[in-house]
């Protein structure tokens, strides 16, 4: 109401507005003037929780009780301790004094500028030892009320009813013992069964835009992880792929699982605004099952790599390398001159400090034990030799070390069961103009870890690829000159002597640049990927014979299924042509082929290790005939069933087609006259067959007559 309105209203009521003294009015007390509102929402306001504003105050207990004289000194000490953590507010330190004894009460209040500082101060000085009898007990002021109200008697928390979780490994119980694979093409991500008996994949689950970059199986196959703008998510379950957990990490770029799939590491790097700066890296480690973030690491990319030229894009992935074995106990990070090994109980450094190793360039865990192998190149212009060392974790004891001279580069290859370590060493020739390669072979499981040196028959051969036989004692090497290098097979055992390396054989002039061992060993694919147009040679190393040669034109990727029964070869959208994948049997029979445009990724679902003991497995292998009988019968059934189904389908299709043909024929017949009219009376196509009559005409032509006299004895 404006003043005009008020005056008008007053006039209406017969009041002389100018005579009213507003100040003389006595209003009832209270905000509502004593009148209760019937608007319920007003009362809810009372329940609003107000920020007490004491969040930045901590209470430090167990201080010494001092008289007035020492008051200043104690305060000085406290200020010194806490100003290291944060900024204490002006007049922010208050130590109450007992008015009777004039002594302090043994506690004080400290007010910081921000609650964060207060929190940090609490965490850092909890348990701080001022002297032997005065150990600080620090609490947030806000917690006091809660702490005061703790009941004296312990009360058992109510037992939550047990809700059985889903069987996350149900896919392993497939009756046909098939394996799953995930493919990404275009916007779609699909999980498929590889149904080799039916020679086609069977869909399990398909989603469009399931992930925003790529997908990855966990190492034991339990989870499928997808990446999104907000973070990562894992999917799995008994029947369908339901989302099991989310892990918040904005703009996550890469993920990595610990080998026992207990932890998930997510990585994000931010390009710096100033190109001179290193990019910012953020890494988080999550507990897979609970989704809790265990630790996060932030910093510039330099802290997560050894520097060097390729450091623009951030750190090399995986930044954290997990120790072998299923217990996920340790992980290590390599940075300049340091190896940081963390343990997962507290997610802190072992012994609270990193290992200083000058100029270390590469580390590698044993796949089964907590042994770390590391490589340090030559220093001081060759005065200090390069070395390869094996370090036991957590004791950090060096188990073995080997010095190497005039080395240009080293690559470490662990055998999958951690028994052997091969180190490929590239050395300079005397002129330092070229390099040649050799191997240092460590036998980890033997006493004192003996090392053997292996050189190729022709020392100057370039080594193109190297691969251990999984769980075996053999390895394959591609060496020689492109485009037709040789492939050699070696064994760590010799017939009588198990401690000597021996050569099994060499295949000359193969079009291969990559090696793919079957996960069960024995078979290997020598593949010529990319530049070699996808040449494939399926090779049996036991017999040293080629089982099949084939070609998947332009193949870019090859992956064995986890059981070693099938192989997938794929052409991903590195180039536009012929995108899709093929499934082969282990011995090189093409089973089926699926073409998909914009094919990005194919990954077999891994299987956890078998529970069968080695002896049991051996026994099964021995009596394979007995076991296989049952499955052969099953195979037979499946194929019979299949043909039955097929027949039905075909019959249906044929019938349907017949119907069409009948319809067309009758229509054609009906229109016969009209058609004739269109053709000025000429008869239609069918009838004209009679027009022509096939006649067989025989005639003889006398071409030439000669007479010859034949004598007979």
């Amino acid at each position, binding site marked *: 109401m404006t003043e005009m309105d008020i005056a008008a209203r007053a006039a209406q009521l017969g009041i002389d507005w100018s005579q009213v003294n507003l100040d003389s009015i006595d209003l009832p007390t209270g905000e509502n003037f004593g009148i209760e509102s019937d608007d319920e929402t007003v009362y809810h306001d009372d329940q609003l929780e107000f920020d007490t504003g004491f969040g930045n105050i901590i209470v430090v207990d167990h201080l010494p009780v001092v008289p007035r004289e020492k008051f200043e000194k104690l305060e000085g000490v406290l200020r010194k301790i806490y100003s290291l953590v944060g900024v204490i507010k002006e007049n922010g330190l208050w130590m109450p004094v007992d008015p009777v004894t004039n002594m302090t009460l043994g506690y004080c209040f400290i007010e910081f500028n921000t609650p964060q500082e207060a929190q940090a101060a609490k965490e850092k000085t909890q348990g701080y030892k001022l002297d032997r009898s005065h150990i600080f007990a620090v609490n947030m002021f806000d917690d006091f009320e809660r702490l005061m109200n703790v009941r004296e008697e312990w009360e058992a928390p109510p037992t939550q009813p047990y809700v059985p979780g889903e069987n996350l490994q149900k896919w392993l119980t497939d009756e046909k013992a098939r394996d799953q694979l995930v493919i990404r093409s275009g916007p779609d991500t699909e999980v498929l069964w590889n149904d080799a008996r039916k020679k086609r994949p069977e869909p399990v689950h398909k989603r469009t835009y399931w992930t925003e970059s790529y997908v990855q199986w966990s190492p034991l196959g339990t989870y499928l992880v997808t990446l999104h703008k907000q973070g990562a998510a894992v999917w799995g379950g008994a029947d369908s792929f339901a989302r099991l957990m989310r892990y918040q990490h904005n703009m996550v770029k890469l993920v990595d699982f610990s080998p026992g799939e207990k932890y998930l590491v997510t990585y994000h790097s931010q390009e710096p605004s100033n190109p001179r700066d290193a990019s910012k890296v953020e890494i988080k480690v999550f507990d897979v099952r609970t989704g809790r973030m265990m630790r996060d690491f932030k910093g510039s990319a330099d802290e997560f790599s050894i520097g060097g030229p390729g450091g623009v894009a951030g750190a090399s992935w995986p930044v954290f390398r997990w120790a072998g074995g299923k217990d996920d106990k340790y992980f290590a990070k390599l940075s300049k001159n340091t190896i940081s090994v963390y343990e997962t109980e507290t997610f802190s450094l072992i012994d609270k400090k990193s290992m200083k190793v000058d100029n270390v360039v590469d580390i590698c865990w044993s796949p089964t034990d907590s042994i770390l192998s590391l490589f340090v190149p030559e220093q001081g212009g060759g005065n200090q030799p390069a070395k390869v060392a094996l370090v036991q974790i957590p004791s950090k004891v060096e188990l073995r070390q080997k010095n190497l001279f005039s080395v240009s580069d080293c690559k470490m290859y662990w055998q999958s069961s951690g028994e052997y370590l091969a180190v490929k060493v590239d050395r300079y020739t005397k002129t330092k103009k070229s390099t040649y390669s050799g191997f240092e072979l460590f036998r980890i499981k033997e006493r004192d870890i003996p090392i053997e040196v292996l050189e190729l028959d022709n020392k100057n051969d370039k080594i193109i690829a190297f691969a251990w036989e999984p769980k075996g004692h053999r390895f394959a090497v591609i060496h020689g000159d492109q485009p037709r290098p040789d492939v050699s097979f070696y064994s760590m055992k010799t017939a009588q002597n198990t401690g000597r390396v021996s050569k099994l054989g060499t295949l000359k002039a193969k079009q291969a640049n990559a090696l793919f061992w079957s996960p069960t060993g024995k078979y290997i694919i020598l593949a010529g990927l990319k530049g070699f147009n996808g040449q494939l040679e399926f090779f049996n190393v036991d017999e040293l014979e080629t089982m099949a040669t084939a070609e998947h034109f332009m193949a870019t990727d090859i992956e064995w299924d986890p059981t070693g029964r099938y192989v997938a070869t794929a052409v991903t959208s590195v180039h*536009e042509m012929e995108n899709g994948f093929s499934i082969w049997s282990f011995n090189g029979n093409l089973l089926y082929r699926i073409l998909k445009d914009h094919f990005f990724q194919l990954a077999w679902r891994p299987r956890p290790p078998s529970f069968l003991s080695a002896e049991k497995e051996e026994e099964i292998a021995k009596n394979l005939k007995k076991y296989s009988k049952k499955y052969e019968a099953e195979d037979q059934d499946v194929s019979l069933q299949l043909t039955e189904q097929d027949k039905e389908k*075909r019959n249906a299709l044929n019938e349907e087609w017949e119907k*069409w043909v009948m319809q*067309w024929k009758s229509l054609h017949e009906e229109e016969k006259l009209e058609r004739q009219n269109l053709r000025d009376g000429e008869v239609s196509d069918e009838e004209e067959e009679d027009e022509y009559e096939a006649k067989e005409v025989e005639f003889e032509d006398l071409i030439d007559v000669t007479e010859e006299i034949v004598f007979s004895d």
Partner: protein
Amino acid sequence: MRPILMKGHERPLTFLRYNRDGDLLFSCAKDHTPTLWYADNGERLGTYRGHNGAVWCCDVSRDSSRLITGSADQTAKLWDVKSGQQYFTFKFGSPARSVDFAIGDKLAVITTDPFMERTSAIHVKRISEDPEDQTADSVLVLESPEGRKRINRAVWGPLNQTIVSGGEDAVIRIWDSETGKLLKESNVEDGHKKTITSLCKAADDSHFITGSLDKTAKLWDMRTLTLIKTYISGVPVNAVSMSPLLNHVVIGGGQDASAVTTTDHRAGKFEAKFYDKILQEEIGGVKGHFGPINALAFNPDGKSFSSGGEDGYVRLHHFDSDYFNIKI
């Protein structure tokens, strides 16, 4: 049997057509001269000189006396098959893409491309019995049936009552050939997703097959435009044909010309692929061309077929006896 390689064109092939008796084969190419071959031994009989642009399409009358050709020189010409003389030229303001004689050979449907400010069009011309009486008058002109999109093929429906067309907008349309009214259109779900490149009808006009860059070929009922079958090829389809003898469909194609140089012939793109017409399954393939296949035609006796490629060759294949006993 070894295919017969017919090298007579200097530019990519565009169209192949057998006469009704199956003894003659007409080929059109981007060079300017349609060529006539003996369909049995691949011997060249003669050429039809007179066009001044790529020849896109041709058709031959039932009695094999007259040939009609459509060319990028913006004309369609009528020829005397025997003498090789052209006796009439239809002039259009834009390239003629497809030609087809009606039953009785008294009418022909000619489609023209969108060109400059012209839209695509379907023209129906009367073909006189006596060449002397031939005029350029149209019986019917469908202006811009598909707007600025090109029509790649138009053929006559049963009893000359309809015209079936297909082209760049991927929709198959059936028109009334008397009134020019649109009768039917293929719908979005059934229809092709990309340009329809080829269309081939059965001998009895009951059904037809279309090939498209969406890597499929589809079989349709010609009266109701019902989708009957879909054949998935894996490569863009440039040419389709149906065996008059067996339930076989042959599909040819390849990727875009721009991608040809980056492709190995072993990639299997340039095969003529045979499908079972009813089961829609691939039976086999005939390799040989080193460029995409642009044209396919079955001999009316079903015992041979020929293919024309971007590579400028016509390959004439007589089937082995094994072919007639294929079981799947």
